[in-house]
């Protein structure tokens, strides 16, 4: 890798920790960002010659904070300052002492940084955009591209989100146990949303946006490193890894959706599947089940089936039943219906989703699943009506194209 390559990776890896500590100092997102940017500029200048510091995050925190303080002093007194080299030269020894915070402090810092992005007043898309900007360090242009909006619109969205947070007066005291657990839950939900935003894009052309999925996985791993004994965080990371393992096979060359049973399982990413399964294994030992763990277990059962016919649908049905109990929702029941149709047949599945017609009347997948079940039962006319409704509700061209394919099949048979 070129020199800048490793520096880039080191800066990216150190960013959450450094930003989190700088935010604790300045209690202001913009100031913390400026200080971090300044520290990165100096890193780009000094690291190529000196090699990377032993602890890049501490270096960035120390240099970023001092640069900001010097800047403030400069503005106050207008005196000459030591030049850059003097400022940075003795940094390593001092930085490690000044910033060798204990793990608990780092943990609360980073959790706070992530949690700030999850402010309840912010709509989900703003939470995600803010996390990508502040925690992951993606540029506004990159985030705008991921959300398929203009740079200016994204800039405005992020600025507005920051203002909301500044006005709300975020809590900077060390959180208590209950508060920490609440924050952890909110952050996990935000990471899950971020992944889903990449996995099933909620509009526009690109159906899967891999960089968003990859960022979500990075954040889930970060969270798991901070909270290594939380089974739901293990479950979240496992779920994302297992879903992501299939991403290359979910669309064909023309961008059309390939259903799970039609995917080329040989192209699923074995490394990610193994890691996901290892995390579920760890989580299960705690015997404290939760929605992420159950969903991950379902994904794992799919991953372990060498062929679609090997899928343990009965077990998947049971897991969905557990999920229904933990988080009752029509969407969960709809997903369960697919497992029921495989384990018990389309008739049983259709009966299961009949009560969902009202609550899910505006939901693309409901009409898609209903159409497929009716099709299996040979009720072509009803299937056609369901598919027509689905197409009208499709959020991406790929979703619409997939349903059209089903309609074509109906037509050929009819």
């Amino acid at each position: 890798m070129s020199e800048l390559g490793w520096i880039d990776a080191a800066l990216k890896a150190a960013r959450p920790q450094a930003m989190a500590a700088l935010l604790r100092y300045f209690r202001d997102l913009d100031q913390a960002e400026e200080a971090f940017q300044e520290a990165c500029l100096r890193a780009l200048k000094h690291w190529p010659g000196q090699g990377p510091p032993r602890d890049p995050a501490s270096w960035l925190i120390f240099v970023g904070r001092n640069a900001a303080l010097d800047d403030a002093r400069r503005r106050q007194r207008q005196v000459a300052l030591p030049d850059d080299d003097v400022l940075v030269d003795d940094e390593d020894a001092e930085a490690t002492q000044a910033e060798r915070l204990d793990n608990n402090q780092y943990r609360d810092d980073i959790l706070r940084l992530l949690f700030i992005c999850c402010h309840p007043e912010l709509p989900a898309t703003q939470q995600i955009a803010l996390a990508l900007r502040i925690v992951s360090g993606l540029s506004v242009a990159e985030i705008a591209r991921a959300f398929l909006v203009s740079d200016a619109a994204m800039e405005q969205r992020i600025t507005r989100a920051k203002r909301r947070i500044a006005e709300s007066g975020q809590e900077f005291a060390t959180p208590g146990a209950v508060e920490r657990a609440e924050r952890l839950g909110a952050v996990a939900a935000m990471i899950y949303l971020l992944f889903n935003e990449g996995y099933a894009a909620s509009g526009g052309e690109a159906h899967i946006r891999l960089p968003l999925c990859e960022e979500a996985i990075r954040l889930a791993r970060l969270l798991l490193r901070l909270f290594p004994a939380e089974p739901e965080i293990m479950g979240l990371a496992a779920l994302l890894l297992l879903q992501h393992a299939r991403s290359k096979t979910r669309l064909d060359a023309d961008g059309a959706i390939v259903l799970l049973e039609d995917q080329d399982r040989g192209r699923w990413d074995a490394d990610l599947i193994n890691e996901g399964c290892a995390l579920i294994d760890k989580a299960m030992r705690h015997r404290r089940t939760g929605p992420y763990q159950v969903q991950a277990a379902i994904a794992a059962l799919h991953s372990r089936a060498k062929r679609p016919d090997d899928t343990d649908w009965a077990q998947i049905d049971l897991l969905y039943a557990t999920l229904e109990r933990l988080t009752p929702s029509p969407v969960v029941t709809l997903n369960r219906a697919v497992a029921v149709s495989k384990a018990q047949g389309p008739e049983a599945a259709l009966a299961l989703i009949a009560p969902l017609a009202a609550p899910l009347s505006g939901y693309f997948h409901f009409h898609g699943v209903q159409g497929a079940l009716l099709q299996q039962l040979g009720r072509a006319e009803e299937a056609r009506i369901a598919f027509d409704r689905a197409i009208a509700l499709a959020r991406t061209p790929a979703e619409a194209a997939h349903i059209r394919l089903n309609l074509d099949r109906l037509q050929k048979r009819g």
Partner: protein
Amino acid sequence: MLYAILCYNDEAAVEAWPKAKDDAVIAHRRQVTDRLAEAGKLGPVLRLMPTTAATSLRHGPDPLVLDGPFAETKEQLLGFYVIDCASLEEAIETAKQIGASDTGTFEIRPLRYFSAGSLQKEPV
């Protein structure tokens, strides 16, 4: 003399590598190890899963299972085993048996990649 080469790096930084970079590093290493393998001088090669997949077992009269990697700095790496188990539970049980009546800690980490190598040698 047999030598073990233990690879340390910043895990988060390595995770931030683009795939092309990771592939390039592995490809370079393969060039070297393939040569060694042909000469019968390559023992087991393995890549560990991230520390997030690790579980630790602290030995003692009442062994303690902890989530996460071995994190203390007062102890040093003295050796390792590679075992094939059906589950983490079985791996922990095996580790308990191996380390019974010991002190210290075993970190149990699933492998991402394993090759047995070509080394033909009497036990040292």
